[in-house]
């Protein structure tokens, strides 16, 4: 694994390796000295063309816990606003000795282009490219789901396990969601079954060729007894009547309201009797896609997702910045 660009091209073994490594990273974050010397002397650049304080802070914390030097390069207030090309910016960062470039960009494919180019030798981590993918978000979601799934099934540790047999329902703006795309491919790789619930206007043309089951009705989708329900954030710009009439109508039909929460409260993780879980990538629109009661429900894993984000990003940076995967020799 040289770059992390998408979950669509992430192999099962690599996905498991990231998740297993992230479990150990999570253990580090709970000890007194929350720092590892692993990436001492190495430079991680956060190249953010889009505002996302959450994701940037998460990557920054991950890099710093591995003792890397972190350079934050934000499009705002930099030469990007004056029209410097991605190529020139990346070559500049490369000349400064970047070992990894974490890129967030509104243009789909920008991370892949960077990785395919000869502009830099750095490892590339896609931190969200347009409406294409956001692989570390899907990995942290999988880490969160796997812990519950393994525990419910009596495993001592989630290490080495996958999500075989799990049924995950993703609700909302699938069309514009990089989170939904990354989750779809990773969940499938890990053996889970994926369902979508969304208005037809927010499902992409061609979705019928995806390995997922689509529902126009959230109630029908919940009746299919998912083990986990993932709500996607409804972007304000979609609410203007172009994709659905009003926010209120969206909430009525596709929101996790208090009434629907009572349905989710009866759902379980497989046959285990343990309660199903609720995820949200954040930030939430309370009262739109998720009611306040649902957001604060004990079934909700939103704070775990945030904590797991740091662990997953530590794992990814560690695995990308360590070289070949030869069998280690005795020392």
């Amino acid at each position, binding site marked *: 694994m040289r770059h992390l660009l998408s979950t669509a091209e992430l192999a099962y073994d690599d996905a498991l390796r990231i998740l297993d490594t992230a479990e*150990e990273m999570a253990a580090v974050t709970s000890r007194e000295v929350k720092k590892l010397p692993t990436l001492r002397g190495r430079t991680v650049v956060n190249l953010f063309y889009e505002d996302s304080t959450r994701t940037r802070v998460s990557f920054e914390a991950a890099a710093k816990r591995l003792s890397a030097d972190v350079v934050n390069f934000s499009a705002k207030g930099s030469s990007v606003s004056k029209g410097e090309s991605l190529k020139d910016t990346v070559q500049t960062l490369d000349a400064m000795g970047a070992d990894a470039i974490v890129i967030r960009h509104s243009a789909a494919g920008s991370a892949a282009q960077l990785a395919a180019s000869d502009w830099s030798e750095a490892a590339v981590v896609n931190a969200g490219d347009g409406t294409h993918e956001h692989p570390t978000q899907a990995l942290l979601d999988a880490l969160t789901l796997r812990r519950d799934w393994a525990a419910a099934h009596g495993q001592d540790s989630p290490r080495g396990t996958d999500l075989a047999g799990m049924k995950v329902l993703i609700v909302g703006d699938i069309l514009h969601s990089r989170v939904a795309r990354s989750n779809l491919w990773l969940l499938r790789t890990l053996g889970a079954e994926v369902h979508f619930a969304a208005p037809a206007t927010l499902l992409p043309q061609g979705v019928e060729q995806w390995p997922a089951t689509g529902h126009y009705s959230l109630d029908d989708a919940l009746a299919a007894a998912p083990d986990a329900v993932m709500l996607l954030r409804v972007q304000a710009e979609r609410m203007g009547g172009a994709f659905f009439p009003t926010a209120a109508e969206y909430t009525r039909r596709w929101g996790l309201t208090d009434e629907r929460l009572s349905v989710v409260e009866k759902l379980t993780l497989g046959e285990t009797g343990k309660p199903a879980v609720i995820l949200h990538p954040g930030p939430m629109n309370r009262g739109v896609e998720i009611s306040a009661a649902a957001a604060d429900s004990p079934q909700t894993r939103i704070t775990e997702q945030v904590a797991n984000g740091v662990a997953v990003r530590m794992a990814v940076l560690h695995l990308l910045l360590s070289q070949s995967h030869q069998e280690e020799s005795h020392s």
Partner: protein
Amino acid sequence: MVDTPETSQVMSAADIDRALTRIAHEIVESQRGTTGLIILGIPRRGVPLAKRLGEKLISIDPGFDAAAHVGALDITMYRDDLRTAAARTPEPTQLPSAGIDGATVVLVDDVLFSGRTIRAALDALSDYGRPQAVRLAVLVDRGHRELPIRADHVGKNIPTSRSERVSVKISGIDEVPAAEETVVIIR
């Protein structure tokens, strides 16, 4: 012509068991008991060896609480060769819930070679607390140290050349039954 490697067995399953028994006795003697003793195996083969040492310690001192005081210390993230080799998935670190401050920690590994793993283990340990003392027990010392590190308890000293490989097969890690555990030199 295929150059088939030449192998010679230097320890049998019985040798390994005897060596662990002896090391357990040495530890108890040098510590004057098992109070404040923590046994930490270094993944991967050090972990089952530490577990077995724990069992031996119980047979010497039934008061030793192996479940609480035998654990694992992963050193993957502390290695100094991460850029050139590495990227092994880290293994779990399991420490006594009471921590390691003030304890005597015995690190356990299968083969002592350059000493770099132990250097990494000492760094890792210092991020978890401040033991009163750290000791080192290894099944095999094959020489060729690159750092000023020595073992306190050695199952067997085996002179080797640098080009030779020492292969340890331990049940629980390698696919061998307990009776077929070996230490072999491959040249």
